[in-house]
């Protein structure tokens, strides 16, 4: 029977900056006989490694498969480590997969279960490998019917993607400090290979082991017949018959090495003192004077990470505060980081840093500095608080610090001396013979023509322009006055902080602070006051309520009071109802006045009505002959509806012939005679 996969967590579990995890990613079936965890640790170089790592399934500790631990491998960017943890006969079902350690770290934690394994030592032949390439591989001694399984940690320095070959267990390239994956394949002997493909070359660490089938039970190891020979033959007792006999065999050591582990062998982890102390690989003193390294067949020499190599720069600063390392070998030279490599704790604070410069990464001597306070952004200024632009900026800006003018801008005191004065007029005629006229420098010469000749106004010569010490300079652009700004708002030109801050990034004024461009246009001018006569300034023309609108038609009537127009112009007046006697009777609006004939006799309650049609006199009938109009109901009754005589009232024509018949009484037909019985 061969080993087989029982259950696998389908997605990867990733953690970052934590010291423990708990998860429920797996349900081991009732057939599961072993659980195997793949743990990947990846973090930035130099991060304190996790220690005291404990991995459990259902609170039962899992142990490192001997040999399947790469230890810490340093890439350019990260420290990586791949480890396999195994557990025989795990609790089946869904349980908690957990891990804990000290020192917050990042990585992956995955778990799967196997069935058909040995229930005592399901995992063996642990190996590990590391390198830098795009084709990580590892060879596992995994006999037929076994499985080889391995997990890979990728350094992530080049951002390579990762594809486990054979059968992928898990793969994840989304890690914060690198990538990882795992795979397995059926055992194919001592050279069973597990490989992973990376998109580009990177540092990798591979840990793998064999998942073995049950060791032959209750009989030891099956060996070849030729390894035995009869050692002693003893004559049987007579009571056992003539053909009975006893023989004894003894196994001799075989010459060829057995691949399989003998029954008597019980795999055990190295005792503590033989385990590789990964901490020793980092920076602490390592005791190489003992014989442990030489006698541990699993020990592999490791290359010091690059940062531990001797570098002249590191030797500059003598070791400080290094406790005496009693166990340190003579070759060990305790060193401290050179000062330029020390982390400047101040850089971790929340002050603004210039990340746009690559100086930090490339200049080892660079020491981060705080930005001067005057460069700090004043968050408060970004708020939408109304700002009074009419006042001086210097007064409202708490960050402003007055500064002296730069030297080049200081007034040259030399220029204050020897102010231009009027040179006394030199009269040539009064010059004594001994007088040796000195020649003024040309700019001081007096134009004699101005003395003797007709006076004309010579062009004004500016002293400043003739001062040879004066060096004309051009204002740098940022010092130029913005004439537009100079018109109204105060400008703070005394501070040079903005001009000298190369990191200054101008910001746009918040919208509410930007002067509305529309306000700049059409400077307010005194518009001529237009005061409507009698109209108050607060007069708002409006539509009078309908009931106040004068019906001009009514003005011809005396029933309209037009003597007081104040009502129409007083906006505070509430509309009032006309007194009843002023109200127009709506009924008068309906029928234009016509001259109705005076109806003297008609009472006010008389309602003229039309005679019904049937009561109209038919004048036609009134002509010539006398007509009885007293009973014209039949003819004139419009409601009359002729009806058909009931059948029984129809005259039977045949009966109208002959003799008269008395229809008034029809004798009943006697069909029987009544009988009277008298009982006595």
């Amino acid at each position, binding site marked *: 029977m061969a080993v087989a996969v029982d259950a696998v967590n389908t997605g990867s*579990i990733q953690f970052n900056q934590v010291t*423990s995890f*708990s*998860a429920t*990613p797996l349900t081991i079936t009732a057939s599961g006989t072993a659980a195997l965890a793949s743990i990947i640790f990846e973090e*930035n170089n130099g991060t304190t490694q996790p220690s005291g790592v404990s991995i459990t399934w259902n609170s039962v500790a899992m142990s490192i498969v001997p040999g399947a631990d790469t230890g810490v491998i340093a890439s350019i960017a990260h420290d990586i480590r791949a480890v396999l943890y195994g557990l025989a006969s795990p609790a089946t079902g869904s349980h908690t997969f957990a891990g804990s350690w000290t020192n917050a770290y990042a990585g992956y934690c995955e778990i799967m279960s196997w069935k058909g394994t040995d229930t005592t030592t399901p995992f063996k032949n642990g190996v590990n490998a590391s390198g830098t390439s795009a084709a990580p591989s590892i060879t596992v001694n995994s006999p037929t019917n076994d499985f080889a399984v391995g997990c890979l940690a990728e350094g992530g320095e080049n951002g390579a993607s990762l594809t486990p070959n054979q059968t992928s267990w898990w793969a994840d390239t989304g890690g914060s400090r690198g990538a990882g994956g795992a795979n397995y394949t059926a055992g194919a002997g001592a050279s069973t290979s597990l490989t992973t493909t990376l998109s580009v070359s990177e540092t990798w660490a591979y840990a793998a082991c064999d998942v073995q089938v049950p060791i032959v039970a209750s009989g030891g190891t099956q060996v070849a017949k030729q390894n035995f020979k009869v050692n002693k033959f003893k004559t049987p007792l007579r009571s056992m018959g003539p053909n009975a006999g006893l023989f004894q065999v003894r196994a001799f050591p075989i010459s060829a090495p057995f691949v399989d582990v003998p029954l008597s062998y019980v795999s055990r982890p190295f005792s503590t003192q033989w385990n590789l102390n990964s901490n020793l690989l980092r920076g602490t003193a390592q005791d190489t004077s003992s014989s442990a390294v030489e006698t541990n067949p699993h020990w592999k020499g490791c290359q010091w990470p690059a940062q531990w190599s001797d570098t002249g720069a590191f030797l500059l600063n003598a070791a400080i505060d290094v406790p005496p390392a009693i166990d340190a070998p003579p070759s060990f030279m305790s060193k401290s980081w050179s000062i330029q490599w020390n982390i400047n704790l101040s850089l971790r604070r929340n002050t603004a840093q210039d990340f746009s410069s690559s100086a930090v990464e490339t200049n080892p001597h660079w020491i981060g500095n705080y930005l001067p306070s005057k460069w700090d952004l004043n968050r408060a200024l970004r708020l939408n608080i109304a700002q009074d632009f009419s006042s001086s900026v210097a007064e409202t800006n708490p960050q402003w610090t007055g500064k002296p003018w730069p030297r080049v801008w200081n007034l040259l005191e030399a220029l204050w001396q020897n102010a231009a004065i009027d040179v006394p007029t030199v009269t040539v005629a009064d010059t004594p013979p001994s007088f040796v006229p000195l020649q003024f420098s040309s700019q001081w010469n007096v134009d004699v023509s101005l003395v003797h000749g007709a006076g004309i106004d010579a062009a004004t010569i500016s002293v400043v322009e003739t001062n040879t010490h004066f060096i004309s300079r051009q204002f740098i652009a940022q010092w130029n006055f913005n004439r537009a700004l100079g018109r109204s708002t105060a400008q703070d030109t005394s501070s040079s902080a903005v001009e000298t801050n190369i990191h200054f990034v101008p910001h746009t004024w918040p919208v509410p602070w930007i002067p509305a461009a529309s306000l700049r246009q059409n400077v307010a001018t005194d518009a001529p006051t237009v005061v409507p006569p009698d109209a108050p300034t607060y007069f708002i023309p409006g539509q009078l309520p309908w009931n106040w609108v004068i019906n001009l038609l009514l003005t011809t009537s005396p029933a309209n009071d037009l003597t007081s127009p104040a009502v129409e112009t007083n906006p505070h007046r509430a509309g009032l109802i006309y007194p009843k006697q002023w109200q127009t009777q709506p009924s008068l609006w309906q029928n234009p006045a016509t001259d109705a004939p005076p109806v003297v006799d008609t009472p006010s309650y008389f309602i003229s009505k039309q005679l019904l049609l049937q009561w109209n006199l038919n004048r036609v009938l009134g002509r010539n002959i006398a007509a009885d109009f007293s009973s014209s109901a039949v003819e004139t009754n419009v409601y009359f509806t002729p009806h058909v005589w009931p059948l029984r009232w129809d005259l039977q024509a045949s009966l109208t012939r002959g003799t008269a018949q008395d229809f008034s009484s029809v004798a009943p037909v006697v069909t029987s005679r009544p009988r009277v019985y008298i009982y006595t």
Partner: protein
Amino acid sequence: MAIATLSTGLPVPLLGSISIAATLLDPAASSVTMQWDISQHLDGNTVPMHAQCDVSQDGGVTWDFLCSAERDKGYSGGSLAFITHPLPGVGNALRMIRATLVAASAITPVTTSMQLVVS
């Protein structure tokens, strides 16, 4: 992807919980990342921070533990702690998840925030 923020500026000691309703949880989502801000959980702070995520397959009637992660104390250099875990019950429209972040006490004022990212 759905993102829910527990809270921002939580003072310590803090005790908060968060849940994404079933209607917000994509039935096709197969992974959840529970993450929280640790930028102020620095060296010298001995307060552990513990985050736990639970999942419900019946619209919040019953809840099962999914995963958790913890920092035993503060460490320098980190900005975000997280744990990513597979989400069971893909295709279940009644699926819900919730998370809880706990820091029992503090020696220095710390603020943090927490998110669940489902993908």
